[in-house]
C-alpha cells in the first residue's frame, strides 16, 4: 500500500523517463522537429546530425515525467552503426518528408531495422510522421499512401510542419502516451505473474480507492 502511494509521487530522481528515438532519412526534419519541440524554434540551416540527445521535463496527462530524445543520423553511411542507438529506444518517431518519395520508401527499412534490434517485437511504439507539411502544395507522397503504410504497421500517422509548429507536440505526446500505456501494461503483467490472476481485480480496486483518498 505504502509503496503504491509512493509510485504516484515519485521523487525526482526516480521520475519516469520516456526514451524516444528520431529516425528517418537525412534532411527530412528530425532535428527540426526535435528543436521545435524542445525550444520552440525553427532552424533554417541544415547541418547533418550525428547523434544528439535532449531531455525535457513534461507533464503528461497530469503526471510529471521526462522525455529523453535521441536525434539520430539519417545518412546512409550510418546505417551499419545504428543498431546500438536503436537498442536504447522505447518509442520511435519515423520521419519522412512528404516532398521526397525516397524518404518515404526508406521508412520501411528503418522500421525493419528497429524491429530487428527489438527482436521483432511488433508492438514497439512507433509514430509515422510526414514532415514539411507547410509545403503541401508540392507534396509528392500522397496522404492516402502514408495512411495505408501506418495502417499496415499498426501505428498512427501524423503530418507535421516543424517550420510552423504544426502537430509537433501531438507527435511527441501521442508517442509518450503509447509508451506509458505499454509500460503500464508491462508492469501489470509483471504484477500478474507475481500475484494470482484473481488478485488483479482486487488490486485495481485498491488502487482506485487510494486515488480517491
Amino acid at each position, binding site marked *: 500500500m505504502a509503496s503504491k502511494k509512493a509510485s504516484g509521487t515519485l521523487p*525526482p530522481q526516480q521520475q519516469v523517463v520516456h526514451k524516444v528515438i528520431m529516425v528517418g532519412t537525412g534532411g527530412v526534419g528530425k532535428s527540426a522537429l526535435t528543436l521545435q519541440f524542445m525550444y520552440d524554434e525553427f532552424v533554417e540551416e541544415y547541418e547533418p546530425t*550525428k547523434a*544528439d*540527445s535532449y531531455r525535457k521535463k513534461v507533464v503528461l496527462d497530469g503526471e510529471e515525467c521526462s522525455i529523453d530524445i535521441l536525434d539520430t543520423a539519417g545518412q546512409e553511411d550510418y*546505417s551499419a552503426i545504428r543498431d*546500438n542507438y536503436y537498442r*536504447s529506444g522505447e518509442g520511435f518517431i519515423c520521419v519522412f518528408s512528404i516532398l521526397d*518519395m525516397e524518404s518515404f520508401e526508406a521508412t520501411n527499412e528503418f522500421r525493419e531495422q528497429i524491429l530487428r534490434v527489438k527482436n521483432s517485437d511488433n508492438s514497439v511504439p512507433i509514430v509515422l510522421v510526414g514532415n514539411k507539411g507547410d509545403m503541401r502544395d508540392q507534396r509528392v507522397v500522397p496522404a492516402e499512401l502514408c495512411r495505408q503504410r501506418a495502417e499496415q504497421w499498426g501505428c498512427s500517422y501524423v503530418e507535421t510542419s516543424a517550420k510552423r509548429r504544426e502537430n509537433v507536440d501531438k507527435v511527441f505526446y501521442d508517442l509518450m502516451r503509447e509508451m506509458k500505456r505499454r509500460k503500464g501494461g508491462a508492469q501489470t503483467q509483471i504484477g500478474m505473474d507475481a500475484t494470482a490472476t484473481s488478485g488483479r481485480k482486487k488490486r485495481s480496486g485498491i488502487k482506485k480507492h487510494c486515488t480517491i483518498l
Partner: protein
Amino acid sequence: MNSSNEDGLFQTDAFSPSDYIRDRLKGVKIGDETRKLRQLRSEMSALNHASQETLKNNVFRNYQQFIDASKEISHLEREIYQITHSLIEQKQVVENLLMMTDDDKNSIHTVSSHSTTTSNTNPIQILMQKMEGIGGILNNMSTSEKVILYSEMEQFDVETKKPLQKCMLILLSHRLIIGNINAAGKYVMESTLSLNSVAPVNVKDRESGAANAGKVLKLLIFPESRCYLCESARIRTLWFDELEQAKREILHKGSLVRQATIRGKRQTVKERKAAAAATVIEEKSTFQEEDEEDNGDDERSEFKKIKSIFQLVPDDNDISWLAELPAELDDCIAHRDLDQAVELIHEWKQCPTKDAVIDIQLQMRENTIVQLLSDDVSRPGAVHGGPRAMKKARTLLTQLGRGTYATDVYLRRRSAMQRNAMRDVTVSEEPISYVKQLCTLYGNAVSDIANEFRSMPQYYCQVLQWCSYELSTLLNLIRRHVIEVAPAIAVIAYTWKNVMHTMEDLTAIGVHLNFEVNRLLGTPLEKALQGNFENICDAVKMRISEEKWRPYVLESESALNRLVEELSDVRINVEWAISANDETKSSLNVSQNVVHFAKVAHTLSKDLAPLRLSPIQVLCEVYADELWKMYLQHLADNIRDGAVFAYSTTFILTMVLPVCDKILYGEEGELIRLIDEFPSLAPYADPTDEEKQKDDEEVAHV
C-alpha cells in the same frame, strides 16, 4: 590669428560657423565680402590638403610600425610555442623518470595539460601508471590494437546536472576502458567494454548554462547510459569522432574477414571439385587400359562417378557452413550488402552438399534478395544518378539467373521514365516542334538502351519489343495531338519527315522499325490527307464555278510586281502575261482564279512530295491526278476565244503543270501525260502555238 589658436577655436563645442564668418568679415568694406570669403575659402582648402597629406603620412608611418609589431608578435608566438613544447617534453621526461624509479606514486595527480592526446610517446606506460588493473589488457594487446585516446573526465548526472566522480576513459581500437578514481586518488579500472556495444551521443542541454555547453558526452551502453563531462567542447567532439571512427573500423574489418572466409571456402570447394574430376580421369584411363572396346559406356560411367563422388562424400565442413549461411545472409541483407549476399547464394548453389531444410531457408532468402534488387530497379527513387545507377542491381539479378526478369523490370522502369519525360513536353501551338521534341526523346532513349544492351545479345528480343512498344506510345501521342487535330498537309508532311528521320537514325544503329511506323501511322495519315484534299477540291470547284475569264487586275503596279515575284520564286514565270495595253501596268492576262489555282496546285505538290515515300503514296498520286484532271476538264469545257482564256490555259499547261509535276514526280514527270487526255487543249500546250498566239496578240495591239 595664428593657426594654433584657430585649431582650438574650431574644436570647441560652442563653435558656430556663422559667427565665425561674421567675425572674419567685421570691418571689411561693403562689396569686398566676396573677395574676402574667396580668400578664406582658398586658405581653408589649402589647410585641408595639408592636413590630408599629414594624415596619409601618419597612417603610413603607423602602418609600418604595425607591420613590425605583427612580425614581432608572430616571432614571439613561435618562441612561446617552442618553449611550451620543450616544457611538455621536460614534464614527460620527469614523469617517466618518476615512474621508472617508482619513487612517488602520488605524482599521478599532476595531470598534464595535454591529457587528451594521440599518444606519440609510449602511452601504455603512462596509462598503466595512472590506472590500476589495466596492465593485463594493455600488455596483451595484439599488434593491430593501439591506444587511440585517453582522457580524464567527470561522470555526470543529467538529472541533477552535477558531477558524480572523476573517471578516466581509454579508447583502444576494439574496446573502451573506464576507470573510476578511488579514495587514494588513483584510478581503478571499473569496466571494459567492447566498442560494438557502445554508442556515443552528444548531449544538448541549454538549460544548465554555458558552463557545460557542448561538453557532455553520453555513452549508450545497453541497457544503461552514462554521461561524462569533458574538459572542453573540442575534446567532446574529438571523443565522439574517434569512437565513431573506431566503430566503423571494426565493422569494416569484420566485413573484410567475412569476405576472406568466403574466398577460402570457395577455394576449398573448387579444389575438391578438381580433385574429384582428377580421380574420375584417372579411373577412366584405368578403364581404358583394361577394356578398350567398351567405349560407349565411358561417358555415362564418368557422369555417374562424378555424381556418386559428390553425393557420397557429405562434408561436415560444408554442413556447418551451410547451417551458418542463413544467418550470414540475413546479416548481409540487413546491411544491404547485396553483392556479398549474391556471392553467398552463388556459393550455396555450387556447394555439392545439400540439406533440404537449409535449402528451403536459403531459397526464401534468395527470394528476398531478388525482391530487394527488383525494388532497386523498379523503385522511382532508384533512378537517381541515371539509369546506370540500376546497373549494379541488374547485374546481381543476372548473377542469380534472373537476367530476363531484371531486363523486363528495368525496361518497364525506363518506359515509366519515358512516359514522364513525354508528359513534360507541352503540346504547343507549333505541332512540328512538339513532334521534334518527342522524336528526340524517343531516339535518345532507344539509342541509349541499344548501346547499353549491345554486349548482351540474349536480350535483343526484349529490347526490340520495348522499342516497338515505345514507338507505339510515341506514334499514339503524335496521332492524338498532331494528326487528328486536322492540320495542314504541310504539317502532316513535316511530321512524317521528322518521324522518318528518327527512324533512319535508329536503323543506322540496328533498330529497324519503319514497318511499324507504316502500320501505325498509315490510316491516320490517310484520313488527315483525305480531309484536307476534300477542302482543297471544294475551294477549287467554287473558284471554277465563278470563273469569268477576265484579266486579273491588281490595285497597283507594285502589287503586280509582288505577285510576279512571288510566282517566280517558285519558278513559275508569268511576266509574259502582263497586259501590254494597260497603262497602269497592273493587270495580268491570266484570270485571278487561275492564279489562285496555280498557287494551290504548287503548294499541294510541294506538301505531297515527301508523303510519296509514306504508306499513303498511292493516295497522294491519286489526289494529284484528281485535282489536275478536274482542272484540265474545266479548261477543256470552257475553250473560247479571247486573250485571257488563251493566256490562262497556256499559263497552266506550260508553266504551272510542269513545275508541279517536277516537284511531285521529279524529272520524269507523270502529270504532263494528262494533257494527252484532253486533245482540245493541245494547241495551248504547244510552245510554238504560244509564240504564234503571242504574235497574233501583238498584231492585234498594233
